[in-house]
């Protein structure tokens, strides 16, 4: 078994400065479940889906994670494409796919939270990737909807 320290991990993942910030934001998440209130009105979450879609086996995972403050309508998210299916929880980020997202608005209605943001490292955008970002979190369904390179995909909220 091999353990890679954080510096090596970032190097391994080929991350740039903004993406490193994104990874750091994710790393700063408290331990003990991915979807939770860390304090009043602050929601942290991790949403993931396998790519490509069935019938092919998931070769990679699209991961969106971070925290939002519903009162202050702020927060910090990270999105990235990881090697392996969601259940593998690999942590290996495909080089060039990690993004740090600055949250610009948060709207909550019942069990639904709509988070809007802007990608920090915009010069590195992939084909079909928008500089803006939205994710709609449905807490009762345990699902989220977000854009993936131009298409809407449904992600599962990790508990």
């Amino acid at each position, binding site marked *: 078994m091999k353990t890679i320290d954080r510096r090596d991990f970032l190097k391994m993942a080929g991350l740039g400065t903004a993406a490193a910030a994104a*990874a750091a934001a994710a790393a700063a998440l408290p331990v003990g479940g991915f979807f939770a209130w860390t304090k009043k009105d602050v929601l942290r979450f991790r949403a993931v889906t396998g790519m490509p879609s069935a019938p092919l086996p998931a070769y990679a995972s699209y991961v969106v994670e971070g925290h939002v403050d519903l009162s202050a309508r702020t927060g910090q998210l990270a999105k990235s494409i990881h090697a392996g299916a969601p259940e593998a929880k690999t*942590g290996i980020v495909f080089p060039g796919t990690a993004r740090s997202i600055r949250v610009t608005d948060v709207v909550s209605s019942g069990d639904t939270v709509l988070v809007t943001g802007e990608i920090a490292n915009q010069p590195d955008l992939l084909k079909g990737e928008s500089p803006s970002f939205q994710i709609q979190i449905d807490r009762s369904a345990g699902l989220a909807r977000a854009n993936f390179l131009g298409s809407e995909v449904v992600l599962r909220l990790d508990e």
Partner: protein
Amino acid sequence: MADHLDVPGPIAITVGDHTAHIGPPMGDPKTDITDVYAFLKPGDPARSVLVLNVNPLAPALASSFDSAAIYMINVDTNGDAVADRSIRIRFSEVVDGEQTATVHLATGGLAARLNDGGMAIITAAPASFGPDARITTRGEYTFFAGIRSDPFFFDLLGFIDNFNFGHGDFFADKNVFSIVLEVPNSALGDSPATTSLWARTVLVQNGALVRDDRMARAAINTVFNHGQDKNVFNSIDPDQDLTAMTTEGITFVQSFRNTLSALGGKPALATVLLPDVLNYDFSRATSYAALNGRRLQDDVIDISLSLVTGGSLTTDKVGPHSDYLSEFPYLGAPH
């Protein structure tokens, strides 16, 4: 990804207080086979070049070969998907940043069994961890092991994006650890029409040899096997491919048929793809499209897309790299 990062085995990745475990139960990137090639030596059809690549995204995930592993290129000469010849490569531990390799050639019953025996054909060959290729020649054999430019080309992000190609060649600036052997064709037996080969990595664990990864044709395990079935597939040998069962209780053949049907391909192709071996008739020109070996420049993805989708998809819109060499070790210098 021919088989890049379809890794056999968990690696603990620690970020801050978080540790993630990647992959199936055993290996690590050092033994994660990415691609296998077999082609006639350009200008000399009496000799063959065999390539076994491991360690995707090298050297980011691993910076040496695994000294506790056996890297194998298995050769079946009579069409029964059992190894009749086996080239076994082992590496020393890293000492002062250096590793050396020993290559054995096993034949007959020894080749079919899981072991590291055989006649030594290369000894004390230094691995190359820099831009210069350190090449070892012993008798009729020429050998290289070390970091090189990954010859594989594929729009990986387009694949992940549900075949929405146009993102470009993900592997254009990536490296792998490559093992390259140039051998006389006679080393592969004397029945070229029924010869095939596959790569296998084996780990030495608690004194026992354990099958780790295997690969022949491009992307078979990646495209057709789900979840734990990837590990099951890696743990069996090609002669079991037609009868072994998946974790869903159906044969791999039936599982392949189901996937082919869903993608628009012909279900009957399952028994062409299985057993998973790379047919290599060294008396004929090498061509992956003709199911005969694999050259570095063969567009295995375009060929595979056409087959598995019944022609509805024919290309990922990327082509061969421009850094292949015209002479040994044929793979370009590392990026």
